[in-house]
């Protein structure tokens, strides 16, 4: 059988072609760097922080906080996968620690603690984006029902879809999905676990009992009239539910710029 030695010479790199490859590689890397500039994804600082709510995976991008994920039985790598489609993750514990620190102060009752801007880039659906945008208007010390939140964005009877959208919220705490509760007075479920929701609501002044029920001493505030009432006030019961907020106490309602009702005199 004839020798096939030339095949090894053809399919091998000798000194002459090595120089060619080196030169091509130099030009190639330069070209790749220039072309990548136009398509490069922005960097996102990613880290894990310990908090009173458990370990949290945090991602912060150039325009604000992108993701907080409760690592309850979840793998951090899986959580980062969605982020990687739009950002290049870079490990940075300082950003995560800063977020962890803000959350600790928030849980201690500091209503101004969450200073990072929420960046909703990772929110895929329009419905969810509208809900989360609306939810950001719910102030510290107030909650809204799933039904009312759906009504508020013009999607009546969508309470289950609202629940799913809250479960998929990429930035819990900063976009306060813990402030959405059931219409029957129960606090409902939460992506980080019901106990975490209880902690967050208690930090905002709601004395949630062991049955995970909101207290009776709440007041209802109307976003249109800027008036807050007792729940059984005739004026409150006539009000448009889509614009009703439930405040933990009259002080929280006053802090949100509302005045007490002159009929039921809640304070």
């Amino acid at each position, binding site marked *: *059988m*004839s020798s*096939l030695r*030339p*095949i*090894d*010479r*053809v*399919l*091998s*790199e*000798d*000194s*002459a*072609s090595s120089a*060619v*490859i080196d030169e*091509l*590689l130099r*030009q*190639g*890397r330069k*070209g*790749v760097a220039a*072309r*990548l500039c136009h*398509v*490069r994804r922005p960097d996102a600082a*990613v*880290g*894990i922080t310990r908090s009173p709510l458990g*370990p949290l*995976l945090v991602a912060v991008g150039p325009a604000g906080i992108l993701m907080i994920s409760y*690592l*309850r*039985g*979840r*793998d*951090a*790598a899986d959580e*980062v*996968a969605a982020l*990687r*489609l739009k950002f*290049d*993750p*870079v*490990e940075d514990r300082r950003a995560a620690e800063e977020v962890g620190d803000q959350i600790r102060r928030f849980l201690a009752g500091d209503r101004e603690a969450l200073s990072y801007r929420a960046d909703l880039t990772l929110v895929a659906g329009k419905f969810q984006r509208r809900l989360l945008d609306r939810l950001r208007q719910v102030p510290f010390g107030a909650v809204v029902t799933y039904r009312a939140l759906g009504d508020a964005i013009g999607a009546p009877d969508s309470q289950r879809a609202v629940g799913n959208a809250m479960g998929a919220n990429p930035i819990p705490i900063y976009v306060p999905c813990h402030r959405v509760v059931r219409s029957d007075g129960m606090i409902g479920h939460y992506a980080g676990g019901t106990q975490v929701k209880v902690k967050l609501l208690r930090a905002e002044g709601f004395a949630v009992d062991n049955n995970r029920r909101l207290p009776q001493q709440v007041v209802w505030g109307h976003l249109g009239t800027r008036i807050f009432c007792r729940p059984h006030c005739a004026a409150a019961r006539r009000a448009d539910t889509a614009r009703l907020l439930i405040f933990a106490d009259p002080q929280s309602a006053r802090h949100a710029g509302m005045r007490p009702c002159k009929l039921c005199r809640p304070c």
Partner: protein
Amino acid sequence: MGNRSLRLPAPFEEAIRPYERELMRFVLRMSGNRDDALELFQETCLRAYQAYPRLTCVDAIRAWLYRIATNLCRNHARDARRRTRVIADAGANHREPTADEIGAGQDVEAMAKLIAALPHKQREALTMRKLVGLNYREIGAALGCSVESARANVSLAIKKLRADWSKL
């Protein structure tokens, strides 16, 4: 319980750096032309960057890069054939590697021609095996075929080359 460590995938440039050189050799061999090789290399890197977040198994990055490069080389060869047909100028856009580029004499040039005349899948498999040194599992992943098929393609290529070489 979930894993508390981040285990972020390596940044793209870092991840492909060990394979850049062999990738350049591969596209140069497949295109047979320095300008085309440069363009194919850049396009491969660019597409790989865009698809990098969807690469779930980072261990398979080598075969994955070759798959991108192979597809681009095939597209390039197809486009070159079309152009050649239109302008009726065979070899204007797709020429075989010259002896100078390969750095050898006549027999090597003759072998290069024989390799270029192989069916494209056999040529790709042979180049990956002999030039780059990929294993059959990686060749299978890069060509989208089974390990057995990859092995058969390399074997058939060598068999055909032996037969053609003995005729020369």
